[in-house]
């Protein structure tokens, strides 16, 4: 009997992760407290603030609070997630435009959903694969998210606003379900 060739990945014995829970949707954003999680990448702050402003102006959201990630490359700590969950009803996070921060944005989104907050994750279209791989790894295969064209960092102020307006419909669709109770 020859020796087996050993597996260098260690995944053959790893237990399958349970599917991550998804937050219940609101029928609309009217009166909702919006939490922005800004990942510090260039133009992420003006992009998300413009999304927040438009959610208030056009969709009747009640308020916007913003928080900046300490380290864009890794998922946010449980404490920060809990604090934001106490202050907000829905989350918008991004803008993922690098290898580690796009994956981290997806991981944050999955955790917010499990904490009961609908989350809209925004990444640039160059990072779809890594975003989807991270969501799958975190027990949320097929996790929906929004994209904007790459790159974002080089855009001027007006272009950032245009992009934010362009992604707004997708963000609202991610955060709401018109058939939910209370419509």
């Amino acid at each position, binding site marked *: 009997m020859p*020796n*087996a*060739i*050993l*597996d*260098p*990945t*260690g*995944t053959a014995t790893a237990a399958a992760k349970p599917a991550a829970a998804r937050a219940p949707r609101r029928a609309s954003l009217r009166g909702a407290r919006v939490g922005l999680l800004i990942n510090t990448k*260039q133009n992420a702050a003006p992009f998300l603030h413009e999304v927040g402003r438009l959610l208030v102006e056009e969709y009747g959201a009640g308020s916007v609070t913003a928080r900046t990630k300490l*380290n*864009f*490359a*890794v*998922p946010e700590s449980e404490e920060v997630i809990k604090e934001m969950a106490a202050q907000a009803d829905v989350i918008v996070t991004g803008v993922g435009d*690098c*290898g*580690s*921060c*796009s*994956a*981290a944005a997806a*991981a944050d989104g999955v955790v917010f959903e499990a904490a009961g907050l609908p989350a809209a994750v925004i990444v640039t279209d160059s*990072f779809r*694969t*890594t975003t989807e*791989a*991270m969501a799958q*790894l*975190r027990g949320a295969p097929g996790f929906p998210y929004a994209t904007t064209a790459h790159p974002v960092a080089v855009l001027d102020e007006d272009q950032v606003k245009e992009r934010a307006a362009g992604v707004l419909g997708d963000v609202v669709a991610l955060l709401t379900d018109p058939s939910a109770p209370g419509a």
Partner: protein
Amino acid sequence: MTGAVIEGPPDPDEAQRAIEYCYAQDWSDGLPLVPASKPLVDRFLATVRRDPDEIIGSLEQVGRDCTVYLAAVNAAMAGCKPEYFPVVLAAFEALMRERAARGGGFQSTSGPAPLIVVNGPVRHELGFNTAGGAFGPGFRPNMTIPRAIGLMVRNAFGVREHVFGQATQGVPGRWSICIAENEEESPWEPFAVDGGQPGGVSAVSATLTRTCEFIDNRATPVAEEVLRDFADTIGRLGPQIFPQTPVALVLCPEHAQQFAGAGYSKADVQNWLIEHSGRTAGELRRAGKGGALRLGASAAAEPVSDEYFHRVLTQPRQIPVIVAGAKNAGISMVVRIFGEWSGTAVPVGEKP
């Protein structure tokens, strides 16, 4: 139970089947792997007194750990000899101590490569190249140990290109840079002494690098003229994205001895380069990099004039100095550090 017993010539067809099997599992970095069997991996594990299940590194963001056992399997597959295994563990420990590696380094668009530096008697005991061709190839420990680290990242951490690995272009020679310092021709203390180890101890230091850039300067007897050449490369605009741009110097023995002969200690070299390496604010702005002046904690507090000379380094620890290569020309490397390097040296063969 030790050594693989070869009875008669090995069967090349079986070897090829085993290699193709490893490719089919998606375990390979693109080059053939040595198929690892339990007897082979047991020989690796026998070189250290460590629990095979001990976790030696975690990549929290992808939820994966690397154990002593997985390190041994990947080191075997990389082509390491069993006796290299304590160096593999020390190199991995040194690398994973660095925040840049634990954070998003392996996923980064910059596609950084580990730079591994080996000091002490283990260099000669295991047959590392300590002379010419320091950046390889041609020497089994120098080539297979960094490859083992790459396979651990790929297989144990699950970071594969185009999925969690998002390198835009990556670094030439990624997973193949392992330098054994030329202590014998260095005028200064071994690099591991700078990293906190006593002299004469076998130890490994590691960081992530974004590339190496050569300085060819072999015609002037004036040390400061050579240093000015280094400062020009260190201060250039390309790598500047933050106010600080750490580098390591891999000095050839000729440059190191020239500096020492002119009375420079390592600290003197570092301080000279801190003073002289940078560009003016105007040069940065004209290249669209004015942001590097203001981003981060050490940034200029006030808006500065175009004439302001922006130094890319402020601390000697941001310019680690290593001596490597042959004493046959004045050719050295400026190595770009990804993030920061603590410079800590990890002893070989001791549990950290």
